[in-house]
């Protein structure tokens, strides 16, 4: 699994590649937590998932955990361009009902900061 991160204003953009499961999810969590710790002003996370070829409930759990962390402060997690497999996992788990899913990064930026 490969993870690229960048911080733009109060938004953390996380680009994921590869498979997200019990083995790789802890690294995903640690990278995101590290950024949130270093930049306490971050209140939105954009997860670019076009490159994620597989995700199971271990990966979904890390996304849910970050959502739970940001939500009380008015923040959000927005998923961008999930694959068919990821979208199905999001729907089966119920996560699709509480976390926004966008087709493009532009659409996600509008949702996050209104621009």
């Amino acid at each position, binding site marked *: 699994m490969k993870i690229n991160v960048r911080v733009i204003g109060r938004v953390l953009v996380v680009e994921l590649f590869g498979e997200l499961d019990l*083995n790789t999810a802890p690294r995903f969590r640690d990278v995101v937590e590290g950024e949130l710790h270093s930049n306490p002003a971050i209140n939105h996370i954009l997860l670019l998932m076009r490159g994620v070829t*597989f995700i199971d*409930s271990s990966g*979904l*759990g890390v996304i849910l*955990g970050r959502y739970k962390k940001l939500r009380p402060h008015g923040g959000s997690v927005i998923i961008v361009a999930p694959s*068919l497999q990821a979208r199905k996992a999001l729907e089966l788990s119920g996560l699709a009902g509480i976390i926004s899913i966008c087709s493009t990064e532009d659409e996600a930026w509008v949702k996050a900061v209104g621009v």
Partner: protein
Amino acid sequence: MVTENYMTIEFPAIPENVEFARTVVACFASQISSFTLEEIDDIKLVVSEAVSNTVLHSYDTPGGIIRLTAARNGDTLYVTVEDFGKGITEIEKAKEPAFTTDPDRMGMGFTIMEALSDELHVTSVPGKGVKVEIRKSPHGTAKASEELQC
């Protein structure tokens, strides 16, 4: 059940083997040419959830073993994920959605497995282990075997 083909492997219950397990079963399942790629993805997800559950919950000490079996009878795939750990005392409770105390876990493993399998059986003897049996047949028309590279 007369099986046309089968495989059994054993490996340590460690996170590194979750991907290995689902990939092996996906390759085995691709012998059933009428599975679609989406159905192969479903099988991968079911196996990933079952093996992850075992890695997370079955053993209190390192060294535990997972036995993974896949069998084919006609167009039907049978997968068994078995461990020899502490077992589950309340199977129905363990299968309830969101039954977890870990904030980074969903507790949706069994829900996902049930949704994507034609049949799912969980049996356990406390102190002896857990056996998860999955059955799945193709429902689509596209052929994954022509596109899946194992």
